[in-house]
Structures are given as structure tokens and as C-alpha cells.
């Protein structure tokens, strides 16, 4: 078991390392090779020559790629100075980059924006996992019934609708036509939990609608397969009530694959969250990265990308380990 965990952790570290190289290549190597000066991209949109020179010095852009990557990597663990002679900025660990445009480390911007994205994603995840799994189970059990067919249709709808279209439609109804919420904006949980939830529920609904569909179908398929297994037949043969058969025996093995898929889906959930944030005007990680791209503030984009990748990878490891603990069949020998 320990070997398994250690193995997964090492695998995760390797992937993280590869992601960092991938990001480094994307933000430092590619621009240079294609004729864009990375200093320009990092300083924020066509700045004057003095600023460009300063940024080049600070980031060490005139050094070799290996040397730059090493500084970057070291900065992540130990913090980093951005020094250009006349001024010096300190970026504490974990230093995922320094936004020269905003004069602050990317990490602090991420920390500021994280609660918004987290609120949106976690809330939606609770809804779609709950609704998805339960509707999938019900559809599997009442296979062929009206609920099964209805949920299949709704699932298909959810998968086919772009999340920002549904979001706009919902905004139109909730804000403009029915005046349920007058001005949707993010309220911090610590300020007012009730208002926090009240402003978020349309976004939760929209984001979860997209994924409920998927999880419902997956659960249904998985449940159907599990229900066809021998041990279920045995349980039925033993005379157990159907509810116990489903609830106690079939549910857990049917649902555990969903957990793995959820882990893998986190990256996609982040993409959905970005779009939803943009539709509702919430200033989360998605909004700051899009802003960063529009103002060519690449440190922020890179920092958020790394952070998101890190988060997804770690979550996947946790999910895999949890899955292995729950289901002995999965552990490698």
C-alpha cells in the first residue's frame, strides 16, 4: 500500500515537473523563438525601452534557458528577488511569478481570487455530484422508465448547451425579467454567508447543469454494469430487499469509479468555472487570467496555469489513493 502511495506521489511530482517545463516553454521559450520579446510580454503591453530593459534584467531573460528555468524553479520553493539594479522586488515562496504591471507577486493575486473560484467550483461540484449520482442510480434502477428517458434527454441537453449560453439565459430570467436578484455580484462568505449563497446559486445551477448530465450517464452505466455482477445476484438470491441490495451492496462499487473520473475532471471543471465567472462577472482566477492575457501580463497567466495544474494533479493523487484504500481490486501488485 505504501509502495502504491509513494509511487503515485513520485508520478505526480514527475508530472508537475513536466508541467512546469511545459509552462516555461510556453511562456519563455516560444515567444522568444517566434520573435516576440518576452520582456515586453511580461512587463505589460508595449512598455517603454527603460521598462523593457529593467524587466529583462529582473527576469534574467538574457541568460540561457536552463539558467532561467533553474531560477524559476528555485523561486517556487525558496522565493526570489527580482533585481534590476535600481529597484528590487521580493517574491516570497511559493513564487509563481511577479506581476510587474500590478507590482505584486502572482501568488497574492491568486490567493485573493481563489475564494471566488473555489466557492463557485465547490458549490457546483456538490450539486452535480449529488444530483448526478442520485439521478444516475435512479435511472439505472428504473431502467427504461420515464425517469430514465427523461434524464437521458436532459443529460443530452446539458452536454450540448454551452455553459455561457445557459448562464446568459438564466441571468436574463433571474435578473432582468423576474427581478429575483437585482445585481448579481460576488459577496464574500465571511461578510455574509446568506448573500454569498444567494448570489451564487444561479452560477452553481448553470455550472452544475453541464456536469450533472455527464455524471448521471456515467453513474447509470456503472450502476447497470454493477447490477449485472454476480455478487448482486447473490444478494438478491439471499432474499435481501431491493433497497438494501442497491444501497448497501451495489452502490459503493458502482460509485467509486465516478470518484476517479471526478478527479480527472477537475481540470475541465476549472475551464467551466472560467467561463461561468466571465458570464456572471465574478472576479475569480478565470477573470484575472483573462485580464492578464488581455493586458499581456504573462506572469499572472503563467502563475494561475501552474497553480491550477498543481491543484488538479494533487487532487488526482488524493483521489487515486482514496480509491485504492476503498477498493482493493484497484491496487497494483
Amino acid at each position: 500500500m505504501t509502495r502504491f502511495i509513494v509511487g503515485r506521489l513520485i508520478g505526480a511530482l514527475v508530472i508537475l515537473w513536466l508541467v512546469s517545463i511545459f509552462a516555461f516553454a510556453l511562456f519563455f521559450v516560444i515567444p522568444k523563438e517566434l520573435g516576440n520579446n518576452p520582456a515586453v510580454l511580461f512587463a505589460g503591453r508595449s512598455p517603454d525601452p527603460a521598462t523593457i530593459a529593467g524587466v529583462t534584467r529582473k527576469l534574467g531573460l538574457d541568460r540561457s534557458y536552463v539558467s532561467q528555468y533553474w531560477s524559476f524553479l528555485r523561486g517556487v520553493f525558496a522565493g526570489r528577488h527580482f533585481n534590476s539594479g535600481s529597484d528590487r522586488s521580493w517574491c516570497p515562496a511559493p513564487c509563481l511569478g511577479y506581476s510587474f504591471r500590478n507590482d505584486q507577486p502572482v501568488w497574492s493575486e491568486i490567493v485573493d481570487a481563489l475564494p471566488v473560484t473555489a466557492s463557485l467550483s465547490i458549490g457546483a461540484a456538490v450539486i452535480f455530484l449529488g444530483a448526478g449520482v442520485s439521478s444516475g442510480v435512479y435511472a439505472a434502477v428504473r431502467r427504461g422508465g420515464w425517469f430514465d428517458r427523461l434524464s437521458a434527454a436532459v443529460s443530452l441537453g446539458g452536454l450540448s448547451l454551452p455553459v455561457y449560453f445557459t448562464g446568459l439565459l438564466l441571468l436574463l430570467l433571474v435578473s432582468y425579467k423576474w427581478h429575483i436578484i437585482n445585481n448579481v455580484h460576488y459577496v464574500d462568505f465571511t461578510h455574509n454567508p446568506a448573500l454569498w449563497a444567494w448570489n451564487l446559486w444561479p452560477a452553481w445551477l448553470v455550472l452544475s447543469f453541464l456536469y450533472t448530465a455527464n455524471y448521471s450517464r456515467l453513474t447509470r452505466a456503472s450502476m447497470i454494469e454493477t447490477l449485472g455482477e454476480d455478487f448482486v445476484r447473490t444478494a438478491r438470491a439471499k432474499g435481501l430487499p431491493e433497497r438494501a441490495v442497491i444501497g448497501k451492496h451495489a452502490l459503493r462499487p458502482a460509485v467509486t469509479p465516478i470518484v476517479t473520473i471526478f478527479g480527472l475532471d477537475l481540470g475541465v471543471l476549472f475551464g467551466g468555472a472560467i467561463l461561468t465567472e466571465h458570464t456572471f462577472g465574478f472576479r475569480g482566477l478565470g477573470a484575472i487570467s483573462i485580464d492578464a492575457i488581455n493586458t499581456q501580463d504573462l506572469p499572472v497567466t503563467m502563475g494561475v496555469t501552474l497553480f491550477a495544474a498543481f491543484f488538479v494533479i494533487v487532487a488526482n493523487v488524493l483521489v487515486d489513493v482514496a480509491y485504492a484504500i476503498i477498493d482493493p481490486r484497484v491496487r497494483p501488485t
Partner: protein
Amino acid sequence: MKRRVFLIRAGALVAAAGLALAACGGSSGGGGSASASSSSGTPTIAHPSTKKGGTLQALNDSDCDYWDPGRTYYANCWDQQRWISRELVTFAPRPGTAELVPDLATSVPTSSDLKTWKYTLKKGIKFQDGTPITSKDIKYAVEREFASDVINGGPTYLVDYLDDPANPYPGPYKDPDPNKLGLKTVETPDDQTIIFHLNKAFGDWNYVMSVPIVAPVEKSKDTGANYTFNPVSSGPYQIEKYVPNKSISFVRNPNWDPSTDTVNKALPDKIVVTMGLDLDDVDNRLFANTGDFYVGQTGVQVAMQAKLLADPSVRADRTSDDITGFIRYLSVMTKVKPFDNIHCRMAVAYAIDKTAQQLARGGPVGGGAVATTMITPPVKYYSSFNLFPSAGDKGDVAKAKSELAACGQPNGFSTTLASRSNGKEVAQAEAIQAALARIGIKVTITKSAPSQYFSSVIGIPANVHKNGIGLAMAAWGPDWPSPYAMLDSIVDGRKILSAGNSNYAELNDPVVDKNIDAGVSATSDGAAQEAWTAVDKAIVGSAAYVPLLYDKAFNLFSDRLTNVYFTPAYGMADFAQFGVVK
């Protein structure tokens, strides 16, 4: 001044529609300084109140270009600077006037030769840290303007009129004087007195003394290029927290003595500016009263305008519709091919559909009137002419095509149009793209964030050339009420800078420059009028700048905002008077 790209230009921009302008504000003497003349009706203050308290919630889509008073050149940023900086003189806190009144100085002086100007400072004025403000602090602020490699972005009047070309002053960072006060043309015989010795006569000098560039700067707290992140206040408020591009909040400055200040009401206890908002979000928040006013003051978006026009009670109580005196125009870059050929530029001037521009900005209510001159109607010496006439102002495609043939590009060509990334300017850019497509010019639009657009994208000629930007959207208003203050920075060939440039098209026409000088030094109204009309015709005729609209702003504010009125000084509401308690 840019307004939200407009630069503030104070001034005698009188709204022709119903806002009166008191007779010439401030200094006179010398030609070229003039306030608008006509008065019609009495301007009123909406929701007057003297009640203090509360937090003023300001909303903005973008941060200021700079918070360093020596570098900012946005109208709404000059208006906001009133919270944290005071100048020698400033504008009277009354609607419909651009009259100057004393602020840090005891009075608004006159000068017999228009070259020597002496100001006496009030007693008891202090920085936010309690240090008394002396004339040396003002001199230091003036000197900073000379270090144009570090401190750039603002207007260049101080260098223009105080520098000695034979012996140019290098700025305080390279100043050999141990006290860094080596600028000889500014005298500070004692802590309360400051005397300016101009290198040529200039009747409008008092207006220059109202611009944030003369706000005092504590030498020990000057951090050069980083001062913009933490300027020291001399005004009624001080910065509590500044998160660039996100928010800035102000609290009361404990060392501001109200007895020394006849201008700032300082009613709210706290001011919070939230930036980086989507413009539609700003409109929605204002409508829902979760924000008090839009800092950019360029009016609501077209969608909200449609909504407000259908709601007469909100429209009457919470909106203002003002002719701001700003000009919206298109820069046609004379150093980017093929616009180095005047006929290619004239092709653009003929092809533009100005009614489409008006529609893009909200029609007559929100967009303004079609413009054919660079001097706007509220500014003195405005005269109407149209060098590129077309039926219904929709553009003359036939003439445009013949101009294209004349410049050797009969089948059109490709170019890039720069624009800001949000708001109505995008719609304007797309309308230009459509209009020029009619004559075969293929336009690619490139958008930039507003806080960087002027300082980094089109304000650096080298970048303009490198990126092949042939066209750029622009807007401008007078720094103070005179055609000189309106036009000089943007069309004078001698004002082309390598960074912080405002003459985007790099127009360098000796006829323009010569007539600007003639206008400034004219001794009679007739001569001044002749000179300024000649300047305007030369600019428009060069087609380096194509006037699009005489700007109007249809603004929305919350139901609790008090003391709302349009001031010609900044071409928008006077923020320093706002309160939030009715």
C-alpha cells in the same frame, strides 16, 4: 487631457445645451486664453447637501494611468487627484465655471510681463505625515518633470516654459545640487514664496498651476518611477490601500486643515474605488445602487442607455447628459506606411461614416454630435468648417477611392487599427473597419487595456511603428479653457515625444506650429481667431487627425449621491464635492 481617455482639460467648455458658463474664468491677458463666451440658463447642483459621513463607492473599468500627480494625464484621474493632492490654484467649486481660485497659494496672482509669476503659500498646510508643505516641495515637484526618462506621461508645460535650452536642467535625480533644488528658473527665497521665471510670455500660467504636476512632493519620500504606487497626500484624504488595477481606498488625512481649504468639501469619511470592472457591470451596479458613480464619466453603455431612456423617473433623478467639450477623433499615423502619403490619409478622411460613429456611442443622446473640426464648439475661437463633406456625413466613397488612386493604392491595402478594449470604442473601431472596407482598406483591430493604451501602446512612437499601427482611436479635451490647451500637446510638431507622446500621428506641420505661436501671442481677438482657425484647418486638412464626434456623456449615478454637477474644469462632475448622505 485624456478622458477615460480624455485628458482633463479644464476649461471653459461650456455645454451649449443649457449649462451656463460664467464669464471668463481665471487669468486673462495675452491671447489664446479664453473661456467660452455664451451663457444660457443657470447650471444647477443636483441633490445639494452638506452632510458628512459614509463611504463613497466609485466604480471604474480601469486603473488610472498613474497616481503620481506628476505623470497622470487622464481627465478623471486629475479629478480624483483632488482627493490627495492640492495645487497652487484650482477651480472654483461651482457649476458652470472654470474660474480659478487659490488652493495652496493665498491668491491667484497677476503678472505684468506674463513671464514672472509669484505665489505665496498659505500657512498651516501639511503633508499626510505632518511635515509642513514648503515652496521647496513645490519646486521639487516641478523639477521632477524634467527627469523625463523616469517621470513622464503628463503634460510638458513646465519643461516648455521653465527650461533654459542653452543649459537644460537634467532633473532632480541627476541634479548636482546637494539639495536637489538646482532649477534656476524657479526661485524659493523663503518657505512661503515661490517665483517662476518663464522663458517666454504666457498668459495662461495660472492654469498650469492648477494641474496636478505642481502638487508638492516630499523629496525624502520620492521613489521615482515607483512613486505612482504610493504618493504622499497633500489633500483632504490619503491613500489607505492601493492594489494596482484592482482597488484604491482613501481615508481622511488627519493633517489636512480644513481652515486652509476653501475648495474641497471632503464630505465622505472614506472613498473606495473599485477597478477592473466590466462596463456593463458598472452600469448594473449603478442602477442597483451598489455603486455611486462611474469614475470614467464617459456615460453609460448603449444597452443601459436604452433602458434609462425608457424609464423617465430614473432618467430625471439620477442621470446627467452633458456636452463635455471633448473631441473624439481618429489618428492616422503619418510615419506608418502608406499613411505617410497625404492622399492615403485623405482617403480615410473621406471614407469614414460619422453617423455610424455617433450610433456606436449612443446616438445624439449618449454619443454627441458629428464633428468636422478639432476645436469643439464650447471652446472659444471655434469656427465651423468641413473639409471632407459627404451626404449625411456617411462618407464619400467615390472621393475616397479617387484619393486612394492618387496615393498609388487603388485596390486598397491592409492596416491595423488600435483601440481600447472595452466600452463603446470597440463599436467605433468596428464601424471604422466596416466603413474603410467599402474602399478596399482591410483593417485589423488590436485592442488594449485602457490604463496602458495611451502610456504604452500609442504613446510610444517606436512601438507604433514596430507594430504597424496605422490608425488609432483617440479622444481629447482641453487642459484648461483655451484652444492652446486643447491642441498644443496633440498636434504640435515640437511636442512629439519618444515616450508619453500625445501627438500620436506625429504630425509635424510648420503651418500648424507657426499659427499656434501666433494664436498664443495674438493681441487682438480677431488675430487670435484667424490664427486658431488656421491651425484647425491645417490639422484637419492634413488628415493626420480625423475629427469624429463632439463628445457627450450620459451618466448615471446612485440615488444617494449629493452635490452632482458638471464642471467645465474637468469636463465631468466635480468629484471633490460629492457626498453620500442626503
